[in-house]
Each structure stands twice: as C-alpha cells, then as structure tokens.
C-alpha cells in the first residue's frame, strides 16, 4: 500500500493551476455535509475491505475453532495449516486431522494452471490484436473498413451464444482438458482488444512512421521497431485487462478444463465447494483457497494500482 501512495499522484491535480488548488484548500471547512460525506466514504471503504478481512481471518482459524470463533473478530488460535493443506503440502491423514475431507486438493497446481492460462491469453491476444489493430488503422488494403465493421459486430454477441458451439468444436478437435483447448477462443483475438488498440493507433501521429519509411524501413520493420515501442502504455493496459478477465473466467474453463492437470483456480474453488459436505462445508479450507485466488490480483493492484485506475478512464469512457 505504501508504494502506491508515494508513487501515485492523482492525475487530475497535475496540470491544475495552483490558485484553483489553493482555493479548494481554503474551502475545506468542517461542515455537517462534509462530515456526512466522509462518513459514507469510510463506510464504503470498510464495507469493501471487511469481507476480505473475514475471508483471511477464517482462513487463519483452525477447523476445530470454526464454531467457537464464528463471532470473534480475531482467531483465538491463528494457524496457517489451512493454507498448507489446500496447497497440498500435507499427507491425506494430516489433512483429515486438520478438518479436510482427505480428497486431493492442490491449489499450488491450480494457481500455476491459472497463471499459465492468463499469461498465454494475455500475451498472444495483445500481440495479435496489436498487429491487427495496426493494420486496420494504418495499412491500406481492399475492404478494410467493411471487414473491421464485421469483426467488431462480434462485440454484440453474448458469450453464451458462441460458447456452446465452441465447446463442441474443442471437443471434436480432441482438445478437452488441454491448455490449448482452454485458451484457443481468446488466444487470437477479442473484438474488444482489437477495437481498443486500433483506436490507439488511429490517434498517434504519423510523423515518426513516415520518417522511418523515408529511411527505407519496411512496414513490418516499422511496426516492430517504431510502433510497438511507442505503444507500450496501451499494450500493457490491454494485457493487464485481459489477464484480469482471464483470471476471473469461470464458465469456459469449467466446460473445457475439468481435469485436475489443467484446472484453474476458479474451477477448483467450485469443485472444492461441491466436494465438501453440504451440511458442514469446510469453511476454513475454502477461505484459505479463496485467499489464494485473491492474492495475485491484490498484488497487481498494489503494484499497478494507478495504471489500472487510470486505464478505466480510457477503456470505459473513450
């Protein structure tokens, strides 16, 4: 958190004239309105954080204390044994003793599978959509606008519609329970990434490319050596958004990657809940596993928070 506060200067105040800032400072008197406003913001902040706090607190509670500690804000006997057992570090006997079912649970593997899934999609989708976006923005070829319109129309189709036939396609190709089957539909393109990157390439000045062209560089060379380095910011932004979305994916990996060897964190959480008895779910283990699914995105937010927050300004609105 501290790194974020020190590096992150709110973008809006940067170009603002000093006088306006000073005037706002001067206007900061304590009024009933301000008190109510801040109270609401603090409630929102606490309301946002508390469920995460409760998740971590329950993950640190020994299974035997789950009833006794249900009303306490702090575990009476904090332990990391729940993390150890969901990460598959304990023997089946030890797991059963710690409150698990003894069934094989290996979140170390599932987190790794999720990382592979997200990285493949994030990297290749960004690369291919950057190439496509550049072509649609800058290169001249027959039918460019029409083709782009058709590709973008895919944005209107809800996921479930293509999901059913895509499942059958992946099955017929024999790619069920393989990484390639899982990443295939999002590896080459999504209409959103293509649209976003084309939009960016449309807005950068042509001068640099033209200078490079006069120097005799070919289109491909210009793209790799000149355009991609200039587009670093938007490329990272779109890769980040893609990775976060892939991390959250549930339905598609659930259909394609049921097998343990390729199971992602979200699918594993669902399976874990199903395996544990309905009457008395293994809450401490489930919360430890949930915590593991939050840590990577929380880290992203801590290190890249400012970039993510600012990316909203341009993906959401512009």
């Amino acid at each position, binding site marked *: 958190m501290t790194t974020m506060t020190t590096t992150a200067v709110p973008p809006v105040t940067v170009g603002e004239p000093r006088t306006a800032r000073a005037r706002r400072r001067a206007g900061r008197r304590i009024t009933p309105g301000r008190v109510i406003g801040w109270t609401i913001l603090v409630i929102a902040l606490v309301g946002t954080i508390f469920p995460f706090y409760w998740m971590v607190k329950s993950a640190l509670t020994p299974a035997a204390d789950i009833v006794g500690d249900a009303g306490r804000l702090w575990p009476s006997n904090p332990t990391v044994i729940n993390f150890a057992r969901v990460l598959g570090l304990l023997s089946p006997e030890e797991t059963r003793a710690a409150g698990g079912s003894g069934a094989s649970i290996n979140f170390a593997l599932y987190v790794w599978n999720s990382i592979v899934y997200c990285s493949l999609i994030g990297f290749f989708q960004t690369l291919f959509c950057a190439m496509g976006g550049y072509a649609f923005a800058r290169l001249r070829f027959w039918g460019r606008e029409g083709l782009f319109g058709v590709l973008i129309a895919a944005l209107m189709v809800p996921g479930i519609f293509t999901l*059913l036939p895509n499942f059958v396609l992946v099955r017929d190709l024999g790619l069920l329970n393989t990484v390639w089957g899982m990443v295939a539909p999002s590896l080459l393109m999504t209409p959103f990434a293509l649209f976003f990157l084309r939009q960016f390439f449309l807005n950068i000045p042509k001068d640099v490319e033209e200078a490079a062209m006069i120097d005799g560089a070919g289109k491909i060379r210009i793209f790799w050596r000149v355009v991609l380095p200039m587009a670093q910011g938007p490329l990272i932004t779109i890769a980040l958004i893609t990775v976060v979305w892939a991390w959250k994916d549930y339905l598609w990996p659930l259909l394609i990657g049921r097998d343990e060897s390729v199971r992602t964190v979200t699918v594993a959480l669902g399976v874990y809940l199903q395996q544990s008895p309905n009457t008395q779910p293994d809450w401490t283990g489930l919360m430890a596993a949930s915590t593991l699914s939050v840590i990577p995105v929380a880290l992203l937010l801590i290190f890249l928070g400012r970039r993510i927050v600012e990316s909203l300004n341009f993906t959401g609105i512009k």
Partner: protein
Amino acid sequence: MTQLGLQRTAPSRLAAPRMPRPRGDGRVALLFIAPVLLGFAVFYLYPTIRGLWWSFTDYSLLAEPEFVGLENYVAVLTDSEFWNSMWVTLCYVVLNVGSQTVLALVLATLMHRLTRSVVLRTTLLLPWLVPNVTVGLVWLWLLDTNLGFVNRTLDAMGLDKVGFFTNPAFAIPTISGINTWAFVGYTALLFYAGMLQIPQDTYEAAAIDGAGELRTFFRITLPLLKPILALVLVVSLIGSFQIFDTVAVTTKGGPVNASRVIYYYIYQQAFTYFHMGYAATMAILLVLILGVLTFIQLRLLRASESQLA
C-alpha cells in the same frame, strides 16, 4: 462503450482527406490481420452460424443434429420455465443495476467533491478484480445461516436469522446485493472519470451563486454526466443479464428455481440435459432481447448528448 466509439470514429474517417497512394499494403496487411481473422472466423463466425443452425435442429451432442424446423422456438416460447428464468433474470437486473448505479453515483460524487485519493479509488476497485466465484464463496460464508458473520450479528442483536440463500424470496435480492458489492466500485470510478471531464468553473460559478451541494448535484453534475451515465447503464445492463458465476457457486438456481437465471437455465439445458438445439434457441432469443435493449438505450443516449457542448 464501443458503440459510442464507433460513432465517434466514423465521421473523422470521412472528414480526413484520403492520401493518394500509389499502391496498397495488401500482402503485409494480410500477414498482420491473419491471426485476428483466423480467430474471428473459427471462434466467432463459425459458432454463430452453427448456433443458428442448431436452433432449427434436435441435437443431443451424441447424435448428429436433426432438422426440426421451428419446433425449438415454439417449445421455448411456450416453456413456462423459460419465462420464469427471464422473469428471475429481469428482477435480478433491475435490483442489481438500480442499486449499483445509485450507490456508484453517490460514491463518485463524494469522491469528486471531497478527495482525489488514489488509495481510496484502488481499494474500491478490489472487489471488481476478484473472481466472481471467490466473491460468491466469501459471501456464502458471511451470510451462512448458522455460522455466518451477518446472521451471528443479527442473532446477537436479538433479531431473527435470515436464510439469505435458502429462502426463495431472498435468493435473488441477496445475489444482486453481492454483485452490487462487487461492481459498485468499478462503476463509481467510471462515473468519477466522467465527472472529472466537467469543467471546474461550472462548480465555482455554482458556488458563487450560492447553490448547495444537493442543488449542484441535480443541476450540474447529473445533467452533464448524462451521456456517460447512459453509456455505463448500457454496459452494466448487458453485463448484468449475463449473470452466471455467482448463481452457480451460491444457489445453483435454487431454492426451487427461485434464482435460476437465464444463463444458468441455458447452461443446464445444454450440459445437464444435452438439449443443444433448445439451448441455442434460448441463446438466440437472449441475443435479440439484448440487441433491442441496447438499441433503445443508445437512442436515449443520442437524445441526451450535447449537454456539454
């Protein structure tokens, strides 16, 4: 969001003078767009055509599809379960989008008027970055009837425990509340970004004229935010219609179908009963409904543009 973008780029393309070029970049361009085209053809175009075809067939995943004409459409439109799912989804969408939008507006306005804190904004965004499955699980635990924190607290206060997921009347409101929690920060940040585009002098003028905060909000912020408000509403509405993960984790459509939303029903028909043709038909009807809704909203959006000229 993208619809607006398309409209924005179209005129500029027409206005820009076309530079005369001796020859096009056909070959290089083909190389550049080949991956994107392949992805589109195989995973968007082909399945769309296939899905359309299936909606006219009886297809069980095991045997080949068999043409049955409009039978699926008739069956879906007369299926009370389908209408129940649509009704449940609609209730969810109204509750979720309604509460989310109002709360997000409140939060965005407060941030806009009180603070520029990046820490506050990033914290509010955290639930949006977390998988919906995790959100569902954490709330399933918080709202557990016997041991959950919320019911423990209600109990301690001498109130009755609430079966948030087990009482049919509460299932949908609970799930929509959970997703409001998950998405309100994100929505608030979108509104906040929109508010930053409103010129500061408008507010200073209002302050000089002695307008209070409430008046300023209703007379300045809200009208000038309208285009973004409409845009965010379109996106939230479409997203909200596609709720699946939270339901799949918490209630599995229960109790007695009280929370079986349309995505979940399609999923069940396709992968529990293997009625692919039937599921594809419902998916097409959903596409049509979403298309009509988007169209109406975009018309409203266009009508409300040009407030900040």
